[in-house]
């Protein structure tokens, strides 16, 4: 499988369409998952509320809520206030991939 290939590097791009609730996930530049999400789970009000921070590497979840943390080396992360096209995702990937080799 894609993520069990022994390669610890990851380059993930997630696009979230708040109009259609469509979520696309790219690994490097390859589209590996797309799903139309239930509106209850993709709450526009929460996502656009600037007073609720985004977190990377942690979330609280589960029926018996616990906090989960990531164990990783972060080489970069970005937010765009738009949905990047396939071509733009490729441009960014090609510009950034060398950072992972440093």
């Amino acid at each position, binding site marked *: *499988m*894609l*993520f069990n290939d022994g390669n*610890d590097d*990851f*380059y*993930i791009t*997630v*696009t*979230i369409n*708040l*109009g259609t609730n469509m*979520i696309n*996930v790219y*690994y490097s530049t390859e589209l*590996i*998952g797309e*799903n139309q999400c239930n509106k*209850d*789970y*993709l709450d526009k*009000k*929460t*996502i*656009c509320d600037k007073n*609720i921070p*985004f*977190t*990377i*590497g*942690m*979330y*609280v979840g589960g029926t018996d*809520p*616990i*906090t989960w*943390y*990531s*164990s*990783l*080396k*972060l*080489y*970069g*992360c*970005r*937010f*765009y*206030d*738009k*949905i*990047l096209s396939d071509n733009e*995702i490729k441009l*960014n990937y090609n*510009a*950034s991939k*060398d*950072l*992972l080799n*440093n």
Partner: protein
Amino acid sequence: MKKVVKNNILNKECGITLVALVVTIIILLILAGVTLNIALSENGIFEKAKEAVEKYKDSSETEALGMSVMKYTISRDEKDKIGEILKDNSVDNPDWTVIKLKNENKQYGTNYTYVKEGTEIEGYGKAKHNWVINYETGEIIQLDDYIKVSSGEGVAVTDNLELNINPKSMSNLDALGSGITFISGSGEASKEEYLKGSYIEFDGVDDYLKIDNVHIDDNGGFTFEIFGKRIEKNKEIILLSKTKFEGKQIELQNTNFRNAINLNNFYSCCMGNHKARRFISKTKRDSRTLDRLQN
């Protein structure tokens, strides 16, 4: 008899009653309260005086930058420009650097220079704010919420870029950037704790990044990019979540859509609104996390 009457008259003329004294004291206290309020309140005289001083300093800084523009206009010598020269992101400029305003789709590149806080300004001293200057038009703009992006930072697309965290370019910075905090355990960690050369390390125990004030337009959508290396094989990488912090408590604001994002249990992205909001204490959740890791 005549003497007694005279004394009574004198007493009435010269003394004040206890009631009058109390009323006078109350009036004085009220006046003192009003005066103190005017002087010390949030919009009081002292605060206004402080604001006036700040405005005066700001205007002095703007004037000093204006003098720099005048000097360049006369000399046309590039050495007279203050700050870092910016260049648009184009095929002509392989080494480009732009300043992007957050929350606005606006950027400053070619023809502008970037004057960072602390830059020495001739005849003024060190800049107390961040600025961009157009030496051709004389435009001087104070920067508030912005990011600096350059070709060396692995970004090809800058339109609508709201946030760019690049550890490699952070070694000369004091912090991650406005609104970005690295949390370890119960509080903010120092740069030395999380910045390991060209990456930020998350220990898998209690480290995470908290990012405030990301502007997401509710009419469209957004894109999130993240890249790095897993430290522990088979351990999930939590890409993104949205969590409301309330002091030491966390309001569950995130029901995940892991079926969409979680692939082989390595990557997850959580967002949305939990239907049944619950509160758990930080101590409780931390102990649970430790239990889970120990098991």
